């Protein structure tokens, strides 16, 4: 591998994209992209769109139709469930975490609201890009789908009694 070469690392650091490398490390630690080939992951990072959000910016609202999955590269994001009485924080996601993943499977409504907790940099994967990956790059899309299936099954296992009560899967 070109980048793993010691000589390249020593004499050509000026020509290497170190910021992207640190983002790659963050992504490969996250559950959605784990086990993915570094070359494929680098392709994803090059193709996808990054956006900075200031603290307090609403990324999406509950009830909106979901068209993209977001991955936190820097900063943190709060996931909030709105109710009539109070807003409940479901989780605070840090670098490497993702949210809005159900948008990859189908055009579902957002279950909760996402708000930038601090100034954050997010990587956004749009559904049509993922559909194109399924068509033309089965290795990448299969890995992501497998990870997604694992995330969902993990959720079901952890919430078995509740699922039985509600008789509804996520």
């Amino acid at each position: 591998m070109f980048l793993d070469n010691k000589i390249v690392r020593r004499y050509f650091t000026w020509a290497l994209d170190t910021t992207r490398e640190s983002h790659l490390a963050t992504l490969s630690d996250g559950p959605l992209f784990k086990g993915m080939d570094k070359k494929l992951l680098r392709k994803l990072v090059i193709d996808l769109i990054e956006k900075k959000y200031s603290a307090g910016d609403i990324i999406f609202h509950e009830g909106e139709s979901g068209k993209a999955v977001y991955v936190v590269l820097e900063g943190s994001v709060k996931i909030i469930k709105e109710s009539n009485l109070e807003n409940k924080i479901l989780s605070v996601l840090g670098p490497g975490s993702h949210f809005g993943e159900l948008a990859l499977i189908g055009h579902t409504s957002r279950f909760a609201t996402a708000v930038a907790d601090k100034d954050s940099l997010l990587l956004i994967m749009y559904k049509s890009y993922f559909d194109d990956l399924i068509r033309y790059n089965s290795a990448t899309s299969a890995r992501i789908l497998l990870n997604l299936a694992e995330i969902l099954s993990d959720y079901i296992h952890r919430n078995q009694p509740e699922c039985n009560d509600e008789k509804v899967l996520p």
Partner: protein
Amino acid sequence: MTDERHKNGTSLTDSRKLRNQMPRWVLILLALGVAAVIASRITQLLMMMIAAVVIAYIFSSVIKAFERLGIKRSVAVILLFVLAGVFVIAADLIFIPDLKQEVMNVYAKCPEFSHQIKDALLLIAQDSAGRYPFIESSIMNLVDNVFGPSGFLERTPNASKILKQATPFIMAFILVPFFVFFLLKDWPGVKKRVMAWVPPSYVETTISVIEEINILVGKYLRGLAVDCFVIGVLASAGLWLIGINYHISLGILSGVANIVPYFGPIVGCTVSSLVALMQYRSFDPVWNVVVLYLVIKLMDDLIMQPLLIGKGVHLHPMLLVITLIVVENLFGIMGMILGVPVVTAAQKTAAILLEHHRETLRRKSKVSLIERPLVKSPVRPI
């Protein structure tokens, strides 16, 4: 009754909102109109910019390949230009002498070719004099206009005219690579800056537009390149089968001309027909050439274009011809080449924005009605 009034109230509010937004849409349309007028006044610069965008788009895949190796984008662009320079120098040393010889040969034979065409046309005029007098008069007019003493071919251009016509090409030779360099180097930065301006509620729609246009333009350019190659090969093989000279050059010309929808195949067919007429001095082989080009056009429309370019880049035939005529008038030949993908992209963008607008209205009318059970678990896929 209350529900009815509530519903009516919602729809009335929506229509009022739409009415309030009308001036904004009118302003956007006006701005687009003004931009089109300005663009038509600075066509040369605009065409150079568009050519640079197309070249940058094609070479962006090479830059991405370098980036996948972990190389910085700016370094990748410099590497690409160095490689292109080496390629041009190598081509200049290896191919240019032969090509120069070919061009000189064709240039030397030009008077001979023009005499051959003139003789063939006069022969046809003589043949048709008795039966079809209108054909004879039309051909004689054409011969006078092209080969006569004040005809098109006899006009000798002076040095200042040549310089005036060559200036845009020299400018393009310098400016297009300059634009390509900065487009390739700074494109991700521009994208980031644009995304920073986009309000959070429009992010997904904006990305949707970018993705759709990216997929559409990529599909169109790649499909068009393969389509032109196949058309060139088919035309060349067909002309060789019916015994027309210069079938390889004519095939290349047909392939290149095919870039312009509808008018391109007509150009290829006309030039090949002229060569057939010159070669055989009879109309029979011309019919063979016309049938060959019709068959190729049918194959292109029914098999190749749906397969290569797909249904993504599809304009109604009437809209397509109107588009071609309008863009030809505004931007010339380059406009004809790029008119179709640009109009299709505009069509898609409008559809996405309209969908976003509808969804915003729907959400605003429903926002108070959303009620879902509260989930106890802190982590759930959303």
